[in-house]
């Protein structure tokens, strides 16, 4: 049922149905590994490779939190550490912070004990459990091909309940298969299904943002032509979806840009794999296409910065001009000679929804060409301070403001 719907929608949007029915890997006789696809011959000897995730978190005493640079009046402290590969953060109703990971395969619960934090591992051995969302006492977890839930988890942190499947007919591809998960204003669970490659004609089931009801019914695609978005949020006033997307690799150090987009309605196409950053046709898949046929980015966030978390600030601790600004956490580049990203940026929108300002908020995880951490997501605390997760050091920082 879903499949026929997808094919119909896709056919309307894009055309080449026959191609998409073939799995991505079968299309080219000898595709290079996903992250190398599209690498020009001139870069064949490049030693750029994905940055390895350390198997253990950095000891608290070795985390140089004082290197984090912030605007005047703001201060960062190490809030929790020893959380291997800490990524997405979501609050339980009773004040537990749930933390997801990618390659560590763990889900954690962080309990604030007034001045100290206790970290419990509530699930292990999962398949890249990056997506977490919480509603009505239930924690939802998104792995590669499955969304599942733990009911009443906050009362059972020391003996977590069994994972119940919500939806498990998602593609099984590992590359770009890990998910971001969040409840939309419509009460549905939104998540990404990334392209299973760096650059390829994705199968009809991939390169989108999708949604499903929390009971597993009503699956549908929401946005198309999205290479891989692992961070999004809804504007506090307009309720529109804003999402970050990682651009393709191997088109050079300065191209293409990652992007921040807005999807005010269902069914829009954001260009992948035909058009990058709203104005650059793909050297292979862009042939015969026009960038004007696809939605253009609200903001080019920078080449290879690896934009992950998107979060609108609605707290009251920060100065009034921070209200409704978006924080963008950028995990940082690997496919670029000189590293960029490794910072939290902020976006100020004007009254018409245009970007008025794009500026750094927190930086310093990159010192010269050396990195000691990678900021991945942000989350607000009740008091309006901001938590920043770092999957490389396995830590969470708290940023607060005082006049």
């Amino acid at each position: 049922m879903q499949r026929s719907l997808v094919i119909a929608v896709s056919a309307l949007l894009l055309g080449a149905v026959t191609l998409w029915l073939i799995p991505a890997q079968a299309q080219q006789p000898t595709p290079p590994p996903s992250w190398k696809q599209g690498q020009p011959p001139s870069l064949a000897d490049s030693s750029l490779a994905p940055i390895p995730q350390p198997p253990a978190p950095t000891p608290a005493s070795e985390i140089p939190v004082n290197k984090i640079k912030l605007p005047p009046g703001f201060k960062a402290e190490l809030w929790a550490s020893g959380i291997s590969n800490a990524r997405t953060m979501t609050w339980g109703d009773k004040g537990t912070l749930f933390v997801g990971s990618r390659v560590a395969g763990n889900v954690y619960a962080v309990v604030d004990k007034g001045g100290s934090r206790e970290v419990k591992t509530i699930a292990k051995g999962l398949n890249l459990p990056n997506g977490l969302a919480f509603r009505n006492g239930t924690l939802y977890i998104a792995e590669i091909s499955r969304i599942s839930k733990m009911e009443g988890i906050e009362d059972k942190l020391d003996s977590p309940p069994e994972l119940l499947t919500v939806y498990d007919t998602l593609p099984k591809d590992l590359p770009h298969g890990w998910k971001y998960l969040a409840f939309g204003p419509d009460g549905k669970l939104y998540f990404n299904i990334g392209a299973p490659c760096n650059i390829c004609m994705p199968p009809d089931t991939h390169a989108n943002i999708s949604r499903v009801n929390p009971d597993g019914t009503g699956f549908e695609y929401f946005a198309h032509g999205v290479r891989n978005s692992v961070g999004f949020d809804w504007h506090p006033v307009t309720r529109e979806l804003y999402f970050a997307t990682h651009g393709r690799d191997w088109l050079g150090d300065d191209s293409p840009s990652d992007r921040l987009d807005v999807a005010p309605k269902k069914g829009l196409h954001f260009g992948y794999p035909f058009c990058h950053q709203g104005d650059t046709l793909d050297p292979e898949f862009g042939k015969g296409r026009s960038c004007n046929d696809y939605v253009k980015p609200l903001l080019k966030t920078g080449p290879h910065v690896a934009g992950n978390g998107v979060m609108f600030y609605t707290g009251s601790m920060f100065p009034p001009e921070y209200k409704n600004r978006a924080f963008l956490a950028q995990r940082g580049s690997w496919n670029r000679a000189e590293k960029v990203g490794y910072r939290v940026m902020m976006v100020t929108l004007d009254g018409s929804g245009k970007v008025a300002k794009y500026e750094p908020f927190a930086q310093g995880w990159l010192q010269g060409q050396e990195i000691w951490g990678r900021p991945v997501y942000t989350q607000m605390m009740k008091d309006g301070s901001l938590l920043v997760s770092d999957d490389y050091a396995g830590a969470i920082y708290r940023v607060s403001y005082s006049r």
Partner: protein
Amino acid sequence: MLVATLAASSAGVFAADPEAGRRKSEPCAKCHGADGNATIAGTPSLAGQPTFFTHWQLIKFRDGRRKDAQMSPFAANLSDEDMADLAAFYAAQRPRARSSAIDPAKAAAGRELVTRHHCASCHTPTLAGQKQVPRLAGQDLQYLLKLLRGFKAQTASDLDGTMTMAAQPLTVDEIENVAHYCASLRP
């Protein structure tokens, strides 16, 4: 100021101790050799493997993401600290060549394939491995064959899909050739 307490179950923080790793490796020796150089065909040598690689593989075995009837029980009760110590111990051991039956014609064909498929950009030009990427040079032939066939079939557990994608273009014959080439190299 940091004020984090850690439950016993959570990932600990510690400095790896290779000497403690040597003691902890005693139960492993009957299969992997006292210094990490295995002699049983089909069982991998661990000597000289990068610490990140060994540590990640042990995490996967313990958590059930990688399964093997012989190996899994030995990882089931390892703590994060044990794994770091074991990884540090094996990384410090000198790898020795295995007594695999190499077919020189296959190895010669494999050499070209390793270049064509960019194996070196992750496994390094000498195929000695780095960080989370394993040493292939001089590894046991039967083991290399088993793993490459597994990655090709998308059944070998792989941290995040990079190696699975790297194996997709290889045909059945090419896997033979590549494995003979890797096994033929001096570690």
